[in-house]
């Protein structure tokens, strides 16, 4: 127990790093994923093709390989964001593909009659999407997006293999330094991740129950 308590500063800093990655990469992925999701349902063939190609490529590539590409590959091209940003870019690119699919399936979950009614009063594609379908898709989209964000929270642990001091990185250090307390350290760090996952699920449940709101 002491190993964890004595090093609480390190552990908390680690989770701070984990949360920073989660929040920044999460926001980027939500924004890009929503845009890409509307590409996937657009009447323009080329946009649909872009959306499909992106999702196929990035969902089937392991995140580790994406990390190698961004983390070691970008500096080779003389693009040199900081370590944190390179990790964030890799996480965001990967997560975007899953957000895109969640948004698309949410849009498809809205009854056909709604969009037909909107069209019959003369709305165009953008208006149908913005004023009628997306606000209703919002609720259907909350649970899948929550699971994507939960996966993102867990995926941030990959940065430990790339020299960023997140919670998992701290766990490795503490286990190496305190061979007597390995189980306490493992369970303590695990509990931190479980807490993050639980908070995301609770927020999702509240949002899902609340009356549909504007999805702007």
């Amino acid at each position, binding site marked *: 127990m002491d190993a964890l308590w004595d090093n609480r500063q390190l552990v908390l800093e680690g989770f701070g790093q984990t949360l920073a990655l989660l929040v920044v990469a999460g926001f980027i992925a939500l924004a890009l994923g929503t845009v890409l999701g509307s590409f996937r349902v657009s*009447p323009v063939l080329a946009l649909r093709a872009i959306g499909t190609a992106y999702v196929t490529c*990035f969902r089937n590539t392991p995140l580790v390989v994406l990390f190698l590409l961004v983390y070691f590959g970008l500096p*080779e*091209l003389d693009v040199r964001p900081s370590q944190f940003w390179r990790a964030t870019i890799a996480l965001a690119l990967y997560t975007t593909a899953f957000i895109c699919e969640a948004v698309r399936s949410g849009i498809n979950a809205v009854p056909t009659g709604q969009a037909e009614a909107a069209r019959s009063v003369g709305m165009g594609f953008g208006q149908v999407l913005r004023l009628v379908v997306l606000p209703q898709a919002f609720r259907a989209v909350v649970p899948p997006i929550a*699971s994507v964000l939960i996966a993102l929270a*867990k995926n941030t642990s990959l940065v430990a293999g790339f020299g960023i001091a997140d919670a*998992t990185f701290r766990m490795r250090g503490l286990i190496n330094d305190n061979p007597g307390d390995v189980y306490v350290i493992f369970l303590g760090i695990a509990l931190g991740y479980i807490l993050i996952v639980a908070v995301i699920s609770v927020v999702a449940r509240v949002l899902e129950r609340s009356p549909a709101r504007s999805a702007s």
Partner: protein
Amino acid sequence: MSQVLFDDAGPRGRRRQRAASLVTGLLLLAGLVLVLFKLEAEGQLVAEVWEPFVTPVFVQALLEGMLVTIRTAAVAIVLSIAVGAALAVGRLSIHAWLRWPSTVVVEFFRAVPLLMLILAIYLIYGDELGKFWSLVIGLVLYNGSVLAEVFRAGVLAVPFGQTEAAYAVGMRKGQAMRLVLLPQAVRIMLPAIISQSVVALKDTSLGYVISYEDVVFTGRQISIEFNNYFATALVLAAMFIVVNYSLSRLAVWLERRMGRATGASAARAPEGELMGGGTAG
């Protein structure tokens, strides 16, 4: 594509859509050209960078690495299905002493990052287990827990009349589960199992953190030797995309085939599943 959001366009609308497609295509092309110029400027388009990927020795090393990855994933998936079935039966049990531990195990391993799990197993038991089993056990604990939820949903999706009929012909609870419910649940859940296999295959690359000698490890060594990190990562990504995409096509094919075999209408798979990649986990 969703036909829900727009009517079939008339002649003018089609012209407009074609024009938009053209503009988008041109923009995309311009972007690609810019990227190529950038690659050229940074010396990425010279023979030395790509040479290892047409040299038989390295090609063979990469393919053997991929085989190691696939074999490791296969062992993990088979064991995960067994563990998942056991945990699902535990969670569905009417005995609290079976239900509660199964629930705790499933919820715990689903919420903990897999990389952290693999790392902890290796750090704590690595000396006895070695890299292979550290990785496989981590994968099995995680994927088994995810599959347990898949199986549980599958068993609950079997109509209750099936259970009643099994009891009516005198089966015990265990028999009803083993002989009637699980076979049907597996059938319903096969596409989900294969999509989880894609996830497991991707997750096998997490062996990176304990330097497991899979295809990513081979790639890393090539990129260190030739100093071509960008090119190697692209080749690795392409290899995984090919394998995973084929696997998810297999899932779709299997689903259609089984749909025919059971006489059910072969439902068209939702478009999302055609592209593979499984869940974000």
